[in-house]
């Protein structure tokens, strides 16, 4: 183990000219280093976005009639735009694939790296460049289009800057999103090829762990959907700089067409956000149950069908936009077909718990929290897919609550759980379980307290993207309940960062390869993994979640299990 230790990815170089320090990281083509870099970068932006979310909630503590104003009216649009652009384009869409996918996909399938390591590094640079460009752009010019960039508003808005600068911040932000898009596309291509070409010996498609399957499905969406939105965003930039009339009614254009093009990407994109987290949950649950995942094959196939059906339902965001009634009916009908594979997954997860041997470790808490939150998020999606109820709920706080439940309670809880799960493998250290459990407690309570009231608000008609609201006691009470929830949540977020930083600096060193006693391949390398992952190419002979066989291997000494320290 000494050799593995000295050549682990954290302290040895990977082919770049620089052998240590900062440069050896940002020029490294090692998938593990790239994963960690994505993680660090994302968190810096993410912190800003969380803060803004928190301030948005503060702003709604009292109605404007009371004289309460935390965010000046002119800034409100820029606030929720910055919040959502960071959360979506910089965090939750690239998040799980770029951080955990990069790090663990090659490990899970026994590969030495991704298929195109240099392209992988290029993706990271594109990401970094686009991210900085977007954030600086919004801050300097105060783009206020929301993350949906709906024309004609996005074409005509001459934004009011927070610092008084004159700056075409919308074009800037859209170009940034285009660049970010290329980063994700390249990552997607990389992962698809990695999965097709680089599985180790014996790793058939149906022997791949489920996280790899979910990354595979998500990657296809990234490759086939992102270009559509990329070019549509550039069309808006063109409209602003060189009016062609793509979406301009004064020239015979149709603003609703942009909404089609936008949602052609952005609906499938919500499955890019959720699928990898579903994959992580499919890893965490069997590990902490010490038992095979229930219905492995149907989960794998469900991942792909979610991605496929996800393409057919984009216009359910447009029931109230004035598109044809026929289209509304078709899209509503198709929307419901995405619920079926999702339901299959949920039932499979909970069935895995049956007759299991459950350890409530921190990752397990987050995984179960995911199942609960995501069920709420997904089930409220049913209200939105259904035509008449969507007409009422569209563009109200109900939608805001729906997508925070899916993206935050779902996708983000999955990612956080994944990080807690893989932390010891990534850094060879164990965080404090006490802190981690407290993190979960605050986050889960705070999250639900924050967003449940917003469902009710939405049902009573509170529109979204409102700087303030009419002075009605019902609204005020619910808004205040929700704001107080956000305070609890913020404690959770801060605790989360503390847990991780504390774990990195002071965590108990553990060279255990497999602290959770998990049956999948990525746990068989050293912790932290060595440069090219495996001392020799592993050969796979069994089902990834066959725990009986795994326990036998551990007994025989051919596989590494958890050891007492």
């Amino acid at each position: 183990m000494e050799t593995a230790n000295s050549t682990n990815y954290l302290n040895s170089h990977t082919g770049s000219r620089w052998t240590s320090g900062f440069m050896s990281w940002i020029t490294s083509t090692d998938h593990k280093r790239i994963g960690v870099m994505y993680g660090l970068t994302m968190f810096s932006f993410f912190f800003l976005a969380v803060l803004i979310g928190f301030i948005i909630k503060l702003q709604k503590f009292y109605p404007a009639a009371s004289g309460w104003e935390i965010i000046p009216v002119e800034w409100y649009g820029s606030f929720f735009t910055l919040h959502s652009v960071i959360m979506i384009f910089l965090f939750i869409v690239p998040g799980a694939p770029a951080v955990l996918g990069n790090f663990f996909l090659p490990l899970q399938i026994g590969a030495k790296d991704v298929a195109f390591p240099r392209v992988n590094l290029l993706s990271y640079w594109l990401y970094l460049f686009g991210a900085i460009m977007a954030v600086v752009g919004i801050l300097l010019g105060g783009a206020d289009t929301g993350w949906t960039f709906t024309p004609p508003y996005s074409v005509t808005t001459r934004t009011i800057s927070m610092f008084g600068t004159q700056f075409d911040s919308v074009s800037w932000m859209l170009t940034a999103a285009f660049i970010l898009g290329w980063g994700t596309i390249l990552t997607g291509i990389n992962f698809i090829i990695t999965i097709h070409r680089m599985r180790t010996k014996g790793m058939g498609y149906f022997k791949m762990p489920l996280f790899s399957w979910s990354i595979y499905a998500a990657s296809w969406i990234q490759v086939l959907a992102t270009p559509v939105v990329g070019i549509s965003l550039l069309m808006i930039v063109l409209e602003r700089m060189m009016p062609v009339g793509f979406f301009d009614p004064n020239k015979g254009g149709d603003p609703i067409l942009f909404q089609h093009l936008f949602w052609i990407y952005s609906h499938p994109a919500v499955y890019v956000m959720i699928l990898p987290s579903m994959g992580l949950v499919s890893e965490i649950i069997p590990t902490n149950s010490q038992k095979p995942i229930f219905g492995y094959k149907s989960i794998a196939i469900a991942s792909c069908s979610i991605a496929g059906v996800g393409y057919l339902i984009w216009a359910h965001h447009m029931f109230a936009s004035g598109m044809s009634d026929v289209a509304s009916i078709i899209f509503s009908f198709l929307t419901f077909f995405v619920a079926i594979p999702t339901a299959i997954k949920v039932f499979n997860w909970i069935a895995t718990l049956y007759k299991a041997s459950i350890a409530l470790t921190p990752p397990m808490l987050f995984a179960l929290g995911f199942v609960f939150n995501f069920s709420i998020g997904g089930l409220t999606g049913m209200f939105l897919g259904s035509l008449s109820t969507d007409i009422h709920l569209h563009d109200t706080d109900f939608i805001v609550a729906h997508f925070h439940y899916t993206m935050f309670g779902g996708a983000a809880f999955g990612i956080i759980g994944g990080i807690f799960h893989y932390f010891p493998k990534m850094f060879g250290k164990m965080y404090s379980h006490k802190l981690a459990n407290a993190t979960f407690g605050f986050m889960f309570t705070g999250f639900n307290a924050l967003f449940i009231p917003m469902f009710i608000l939405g049902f009573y008609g509170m529109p979204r993207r409102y700087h303030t609201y009419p002075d009605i006691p019902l609204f005020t009470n619910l808004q205040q309940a929700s704001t107080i929830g956000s305070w609890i949540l913020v404690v959770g977020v801060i605790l989360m960062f503390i847990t991780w930083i504390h774990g990195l600096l002071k965590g108990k060193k553990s060279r255990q390869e497999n602290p959770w006693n998990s049956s999948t391949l990525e746990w068989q390398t050293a912790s932290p993994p060595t440069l090219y992952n495996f001392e020799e190419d592993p050969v796979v002979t069994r089902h990834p979640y066959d725990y009986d066989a795994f326990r036998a291997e551990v007994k025989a000494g051919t596989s590494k299990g958890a050891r007492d320290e």
Partner: protein
Amino acid sequence: MNTKEQSFNPRGPIIVFSALIFLTIATVLLSGLDIGNTGALLIAMSVAAMKAGLVLYFFMHLNHEPLIFKLFVTLAFVTLATLFLLTFSDYAFRGIA
């Protein structure tokens, strides 16, 4: 990549090229016919699809590629076709001008 055994033989590509030129001229001539909008569009687009097929299959060597390449290409085109179809489920039933 066994290269030594291949010898340079331009015949195949030239036949394909001739077919492409033929189709190009055909589509230009056909566009002169007066057969209504949908008809003309249908013909123009099917000829274009044939030409694209030839380029993809022969020039881009899909004929020599393993099955997986063909599946991928099909997937990409099916996706594009679906996007068209579903977008027109809106525009076909809505007057926009």
